């Protein structure tokens, strides 16, 4: 079963159009990548019904309309900027959350706040970026959702806190009924914990595939000279003073002075989504 089934979801901003059909598998972590302005945040907002969109989405098999309360209890999201006033103190916010989510896990909330040293009596605006991200994630997790959407949960966060965030996501994934969809520019996180990858380009899905299958379907090649024959099979050729780097789907590539390896998510990103540098 899929955590999310997105059918022909369309958002129209005039100059920018998002059109997405996508299945987000349950029990897995799906990474959403794309360049700035590709539509990642818009897609997440549309899934959360924060953006006017046409099309249809099933949340764990359930449509939104007619099941609004149930769906909104199943799904939690951490947006890239807090969706509450930053003048508010966590203590006050907790009361609001408890009112909105009867299943809110208060015990875990206090436990996590203490564990990460977040003060409950200080306004959220006094928090550092890392603290805000952790706080947002704690609020989302304590709603006891089945589906967790995260818009760049690790951006602007120091390496240690990034580890903490990743750890919280993976702890959530210990339950095989849970689903995570997160957007990020930190491809290293994807190399490690993502099961599936979705590449978004200009509001459309460029590709959606299992991470390892995707990385293994390509070879990253570095050569001093690019022959015509090679150019035919090369994707995203980038030239430097010392030679050419490109992706290819060919399985058997070899030759003199040629370095061939399995690409990382970062390398696939750069060569598939970047412009050719000649």
């Amino acid at each position, binding site marked *: 079963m899929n955590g999310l089934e997105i059918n022909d979801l369309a958002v129209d901003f005039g100059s920018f159009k998002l059109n997405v059909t996508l299945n987000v598998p349950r029990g897995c972590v799906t990474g959403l990548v794309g360049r700035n302005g590709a539509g990642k945040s818009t897609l997440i907002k549309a899934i959360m019904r924060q953006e006017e969109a046409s099309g249809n989405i099933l949340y764990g098999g359930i449509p939104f309309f007619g099941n609004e309360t149930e769906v909104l209890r199943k799904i939690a999201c951490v947006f890239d900027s807090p969706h509450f006033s930053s003048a508010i103190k966590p203590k006050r916010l907790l009361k609001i959350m408890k009112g909105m989510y009867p299943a809110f896990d208060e*015990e875990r909330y206090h436990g996590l706040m203490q564990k990460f040293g977040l003060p409950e009596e200080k306004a959220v605006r006094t928090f550092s970026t890392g603290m805000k991200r952790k706080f947002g994630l704690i609020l989302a997790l304590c709603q006891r959702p089945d589906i967790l959407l995260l818009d760049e949960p690790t951006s602007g966060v120091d390496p240690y806190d990034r580890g903490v965030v990743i*750890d919280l996501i993976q702890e959530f*994934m210990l339950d095989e009924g849970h689903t995570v969809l997160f957007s990020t520019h930190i491809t290293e996180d994807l190399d490690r*914990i993502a099961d599936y990858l979705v590449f978004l380009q200009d509001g459309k899905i460029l590709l959606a595939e299992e991470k390892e299958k995707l990385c293994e379907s390509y070879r990253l090649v570095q050569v001093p000279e690019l022959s015509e024959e090679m150019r035919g099979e090369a994707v995203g050729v980038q030239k430097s003073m010392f030679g050419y780097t490109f992706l290819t789907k060919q399985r058997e590539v070899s030759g003199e002075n040629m370095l061939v390896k399995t690409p990382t998510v970062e390398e696939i990103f750069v060569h598939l989504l970047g412009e050719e540098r000649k």
Partner: protein
Amino acid sequence: MNDIFTEEKFRKSFPNPLTEYCIYCIITVETVGSNMHIQLNLQAGPLYEQIEYQIRAQIFSGELNAGEALPSIRVLAKELTIGVITAKRAYDDLIAEGFLYAVQGKGVFVSEKREDDLVNGKTERLKEQLRSAKRFAAECGVSPEQFGKIVQEIMEEKDERS
């Protein structure tokens, strides 16, 4: 899939553990531990292969014993900070090779050692060493033919001890 009794689940089932159910607490902690140890290097090839290789090596060396329970796929993924599918692939491959076996609803266990596996395991380690030699050869600009010749030469060398 095997689901371990996590602290969180434990708390849900026994809301007041310290006074009434402390015995359960001790048991839970002990069942979670594992003898397995794994180190991963993101730059050193597919992660599932690294896991497979290390589990195999620990079975051969006797650090992991037949019948021993291994962590569930999801715990393995969390502890190693890797994807669930990567963890599953490592276990699936080792199950297919016969090093591990899965019991529905109970988890993954180490299989009985077999003699031919021991031979295979040593071959595997030899291959690993030859692969690093191959990488070094490529760095030095030694062609595959030359590399083959060098291996041949080594095989023909007289054993120093004899």
